[in-house]
């Protein structure tokens, strides 16, 4: 019903609003009814009382007017007081047309005078006299042309009604406010279980897979809690199965690789005894065992990272020293590292093995696809370190720069896969490792030539 309100308002605000609106409608309806009933009743009662007194007075006036020396002034003076009223008489034969002890004829509405003068019986009329709500009632006295009027001011009823109006309005506002507060309370109470669920979900997302919510004995909530817990269990089972699978694959693939590795090494040691053809075949075998081994390691690394079973150990790492070791290990000692002046310290908190892999994978990537790295730069600021590796290749088109970090990046890899080609997990692992360090990695162009520039930005501390 209130769907138009959904825009921009939270559930809690909507519930409070609905409560408030409900409170306002109900209290306003009740107030209006109470007011109009009170108003009608009190005015009617007053009019009835006035009329009763009026008719008594009218017959008194008639009786008195039959007396010879009757002076209307005296008659009116001696009339019993109609509550809040003032008498007026109109005597057409008199020299003074109007006899009015306290009021003037102008106080009467002319229509009423006309009606009484021409019609039969009593007429009454409610009207506003000088801003006061008044009741005028008139009748012709017996068979004479004399008209007798009473003007009754209703202002004290009006002022009573006005204070009633104020009170009711205040009560309505109060009721609305209370309803809103009630709505806020009810909604936060109703939503409190959601906060528990939200906490539980966050804790699951943070890796505490055995997080569950306690049932509260509320049949409405327990169904929800039950399905949440079922979901958590299913998720836990599945993640554990994935992690176990990765681990099983690890064992299953690594064991035969062990035999292959050791056997190939034994053969390699006897390469001289082999014919040229057998030696060439052995080289192929040896290289592909290495490649296969590398692929298995990369696959395991990435599936471990997917399963969230990261056993990162963060230490203070000197990136300059790390670069020296990577260059030595990958045969790039001839490429100098340009350390920017902006770098005040090359030390960051990181996982050495993974950072090593980041740099070596980037260098190998440049070797495989872009005629090798040509420049390594290290810069940074207070809170991060920036490593850039430029290659001498043809560069990477803008729309493929993100794709190169995809696993087995197909479209790109199909073109980029070289003869000694890897399966394209290298850059995906770079992205995973950098993400683990809360850093960023991207590709841009080298300003001076057309090669690709890989940029890795790593925060100095883990918290960022």
């Amino acid at each position, binding site marked *: 019903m209130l769907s138009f309100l959904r825009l921009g308002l939270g559930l809690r605000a909507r519930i409070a609003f609905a409560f408030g609106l409900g409170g306002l409608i109900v209290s306003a309806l009740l107030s209006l009814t109470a007011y109009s009933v009170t108003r009608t009743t009190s005015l009617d009662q007053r009019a009835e009382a006035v009329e009763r007194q009026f008719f008594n007075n009218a017959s008194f006036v008639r009786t008195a007017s039959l007396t010879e020396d009757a002076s209307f002034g005296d008659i009116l003076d001696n009339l019993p007081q109609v509550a809040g009223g003032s008498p007026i008489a109109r005597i057409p034969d008199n020299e003074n047309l109007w006899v009015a002890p306290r009021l003037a004829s102008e106080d009467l509405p002319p229509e009423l005078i006309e009606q009484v003068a021409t019609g039969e019986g009593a007429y009454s009329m409610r009207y506003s006299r000088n801003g006061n709500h008044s009741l005028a009632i008139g009748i012709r006295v017996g068979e004479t042309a004399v008209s007798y009027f009473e003007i009754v001011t209703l202002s004290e009823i009006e002022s009573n009604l006005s204070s009633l109006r104020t009170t009711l309005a205040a009560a309505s506002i109060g009721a609305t406010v209370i309803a809103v507060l009630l709505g806020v309370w009810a909604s936060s109470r109703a939503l409190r279980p959601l906060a528990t669920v939200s906490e539980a979900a966050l804790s699951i997302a943070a890796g505490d897979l055995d997080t569950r919510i306690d049932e509260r004995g509320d049949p409405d909530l327990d169904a929800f809690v039950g399905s949440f817990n079922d979901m958590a269990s299913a998720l836990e089972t599945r993640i554990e199965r994935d992690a176990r699978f990765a681990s099983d694959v690890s*064992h299953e693939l*690594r064991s035969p690789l*062990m*035999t292959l*590795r050791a056997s190939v*090494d034994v053969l390699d040691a006897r390469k001289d005894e082999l014919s040229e053809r057998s030696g060439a075949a052995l080289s192929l075998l040896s290289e592909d065992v290495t490649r296969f081994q590398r692929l298995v390691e990369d696959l395991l690394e990435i599936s471990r990272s997917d399963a969230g079973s990261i*056993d990162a150990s963060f230490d203070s790492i000197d990136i300059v020293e790390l670069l020296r070791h990577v260059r030595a290990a990958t045969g790039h000692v001839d490429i100098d590292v340009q350390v920017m002046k902006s770098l005040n310290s090359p030390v960051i908190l990181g996982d050495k093995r993974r950072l090593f892999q980041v740099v070596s994978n980037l260098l190998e990537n440049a070797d495989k696809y872009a005629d090798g790295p040509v420049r390594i730069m290290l810069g940074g600021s207070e809170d991060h370190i920036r490593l850039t590796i430029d290659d001498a290749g043809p560069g990477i088109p803008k729309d493929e720069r993100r794709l190169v970090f995809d696993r087995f990046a197909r479209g790109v890899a199909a073109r980029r896969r070289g003869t000694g080609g890897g399966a394209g997990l290298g850059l995906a692992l770079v992205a995973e490792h950098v993400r683990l360090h809360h850093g960023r990695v991207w590709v841009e162009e080298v300003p001076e030539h057309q090669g690709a520039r890989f940029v890795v930005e790593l925060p100095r501390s883990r918290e960022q």
Partner: protein
Amino acid sequence: MGTRILTVEDDERIRTAVRFALEDEGWVVDEADSGESAIDQFSRGETDVVLIDIMLPGIDGFELCRTLRRNSDVPIIMVTARDDTHDVVAGLEAGADDYLTKPFAPKELSARIRALLRRNRPVTADASTVRIGDLEIAAEQGVVKRAGEEVHLTKTEFRLLCELASSPGKVFSRETLLEKVWGYDYFGDGRLVDVHVRRLRTKVEADPAHPRHVVTVRGMGYKIQS
């Protein structure tokens, strides 16, 4: 008489291939296909280094390691197909001196064995006896006493203690310790140091949970103090 290596591995193909490769490296290799047979062979007293695969039928690698450790400080290298923290730490806590992940290069294994054997000859500390609190380290004799009583350390633990005791109060980073004690150049696993320090504490500290001698310097490494 060459250095004898006992390889404990249930997979015959791996066992054979590793034996060939190790023999090419110049080691004498004995084979065992189970923990039970390994204990049998070890009891002959000819073994210099033990290579244990964690996944064994019957007595598993951890249990075998603990059993051997009860009576011997022979260098033990664990071989695991899983390099997750649990297996590595459990292996080291069972008493292994080092670990390798399958598939390893036979040359790497040889380097590890050489490093372990090098360590078996006590080195360091010019002074014959170093005193640190209630600890007494006689480097030459390879004897450590705590409150006058001899404490039995493995060679690796002893070497680690001597290294730390060579400069009391100086903080040694994990990297330095990996290089000096295990012979790793850059890629040693810090968990090796952590677990060995833990094991060392259970032997040389009165209250290993609140160490007084071998203390952790947060974010930097370890140091020894009296």
